């Protein structure tokens, strides 16, 4: 090996180490949403509380909305629910997406834990969930007034998460909507 080639392994290794140090801060299991800055998918689903009412994408237009994916079988959703109630009291418009659930179970759940949702749609087969790239409840999508998805969170939302990940963007979008 010549005089300079011998330093190559060391150089490569130091480069690798830096990448590894930076990588320790990352969480490998969180997926980015493929739908950020894309339109919220078309759908035509029954409203949870009214079987004669069909809801489509149209209803999301005009307001900045939080779309929350939840289910009565989802334990983490019950942990998050209080926060959603608080947000709804503060005036945040939250739409529920009842994911792969039974209508009766879902209604009972809302009765017990409170209903922060302007309305919930019943996605019994999970088709809308699939179109949204949902892989585990709870998930929350921040949708702007034009119906474009601007952010997605996988996992429970609490005060800290709201502050760090949603609040500023939400405020921005409200201003935009004016």
């Amino acid at each position, binding site marked *: *090996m*010549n005089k300079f080639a*011998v330093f190559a392994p*060391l150089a490569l290794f130091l480069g690798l*180490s830096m*990448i590894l140090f930076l*990588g320790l*801060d990352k969480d*490998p299991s969180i997926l980015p949403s493929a739908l950020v800055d894309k339109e919220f998918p078309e759908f035509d689903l029954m409203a949870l509380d009214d079987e004669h009412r069909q809801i489509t994408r149209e209803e999301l237009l005009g307001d900045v909305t939080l779309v929350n994916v939840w289910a009565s079988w989802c334990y983490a959703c019950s942990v998050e629910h209080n926060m959603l109630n608080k947000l709804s009291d503060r005036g945040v418009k939250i739409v529920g997406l009842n994911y792969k659930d039974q209508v009766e179970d879902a209604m009972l759940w809302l009765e017990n834990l409170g209903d922060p949702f302007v309305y919930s749609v019943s996605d019994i087969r999970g088709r809308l969930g699939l179109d949204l790239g949902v892989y585990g409840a709870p998930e929350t999508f921040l949708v702007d007034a034009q119906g474009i998805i601007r952010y997605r969170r996988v996992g429970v939302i609490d005060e800290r998460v709201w502050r760090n990940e949603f609040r500023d963007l939400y405020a921005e979008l409200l201003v935009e909507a004016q």
Partner: protein
Amino acid sequence: MSPELGHLAVIAALCLSFFQAVIPMVGSFVGHRSWMRLGHSLALGQFVFLGLAFVCLISVFIQDDFSVAYVANNSNTLLPLHYKVSAVWGAHEGSLLLWTLILAGWSGAIALFSGHMPQTFSARVLSILGFISLGFLLFLLFTSNPFERLLPVSPIEGRDLNPLLQDFGLIVHPPMLYMGYVGSSVPFAFAIAALIGGQFDSAWARWSRPWINTSWVFLTLGISLGSWWAYYELGWGGWWFWDPVENASFMPWLMSTALVHSVAATEKRGVFRSWTLLLAILSFSLSLLGAFLVRSGILTSVHSFANDPERGIFILWFLVIVVGASLLLFAIRSPQMANSTTHRGWSRETILLVNNVLLVTSTATIFIGTLYPLFSDVFQLGKISVGAPYFNFFFVPLMIILMLALGFAGFTRWGSTDVNLLLRRGLFPGLLSFFIALLVPALLTDSSSGSSYSFTAGITLFVSAWVLFMTIEDIYLKSRGSWINAKRFTCSYWGMVIAHIGLAACALGVGMSSSYDEQRDLRMMPGDAVKISDYEFRFGGVNRVDNANFVAFRGEVSVTDKTGMTINLFPEKRNYKAGGQVMTEAAIDASLARDLYVSLGEPLQGEAWAVRLQIKPLVRFIWLGSVLIGFGGLLAAFDKRYRRRKKLLDGQSNRGGLAFE
């Protein structure tokens, strides 16, 4: 009492490792004989203390002492005794203690068997091993202490050992794997000692070869056991997933294989010195990197231990210091070691170089594939996945080229070889292999199921037959057709032969089981039967069976072959009481020719179940082949010439060169 005793023993070992790291090294520079000798006693002392600590941990598990956090997290009163013992290394902290114990074991072995090496050299080797020990023990005591207590309120019951680990595989796989993983620190220590001393010659190669070969054998067997375990335990019939944790053990193995071959050239001809040193350093570095990847949570894997970034930082710093310093030392010192390139053309040196290039390229590919998702995430290029399709795409062709080159290996000569000779040697075996590769898959095409000639099977057969026939031809020619001559071949030679044949067998198993694997996922009611290939599978329904710590739903499947012979298989779906996990226990009928693999899916409506039925031809060859590889390596390690050293020393000959042959 036991936990505290164990804890104190580890602390004692820590102190000893500190002295072991410092004193012999200093002694080697100053020329202080007793300081250099101290390394040996310190190494053995470490082994004793860590052995004591290990025994304490085992006894704590057996006693169901849930005041020890590690026991509370990994055991349960209902757990059978043999699993309580193996649970000791079932999770991060305990497996780390196993690691340090095995490291102390290897160091102790060096202490006992280094009589024929110069004292400065063995002192430095032990110091380096002591330093590594020091790092791991500090890591253990400060971030991952298995003896941590949950006081004053201790749980009355433990959380149970992960059901996937309640298996024979846990008893054998980690210890064997760690023997190899940790064993790679020995060649590393040898290399660093050589670089420090500025002395590197074929004597070094001769001292280090048995250690290199032995640790490589353990790693071979450890990985093979892991693959076999995953096969029967995970329930879906796969045996290799290119999972980051698997890759973390495979990369050191590939580098060690390159090292095993490189050091052979260094011993015999004094060539490839820098390469050998670099490979020894890189094998251990990859082993440390593997430990980091598995325990830091930086990559997602089915097999990884619990995520903990704090632990990750510690190991990473240790990795940076150890590997960084080694590579720096290498960069500074290795140019001094004159590397002669006196070979030319198609010599044995060239073939070994080809072998090493292919192995290093494979390692680099697996490395890049495993770390690329991380790289992509860190540089904001998005989150991607790299899996089996990528790895197979590169690894398989590389291995095919390697095996083609391997065939010629026996006929090459040091210095230079006539190409025409090689081609002549290869002609007949080549034609024979080609013929087999054409014929066998053609015969195996089954017109009723619409299958056609399988090219992957053809290539597999060609390559495996090629290696086999070329090896046999080599034996025949070297012994001049006489068995008496052949019996006088060295263990080294036979070891090589067996290992290479083992590789051919392994490749055969991989290729054939992939090409001719048959699988059906069916909805079956009790009494249903289906015919797959030449076998009839009949489903007998599912019964509930209660066990000590789980409830099993036991299915019965009877399989009848074309001769009318029937065997009964009992796949299970288990619900573990303590943690509530559900596990799939496959039922396997193993034979050389094929495995019948049956597993239960989910219960469906009524009495129906989802059942997965598989026929896997020649899959056993994969593990039998790798055992042969290991056996070959072991044989080579115990070649008489490594054990003859003492005699030569005692009976001074006029050759004057115990250092050179």
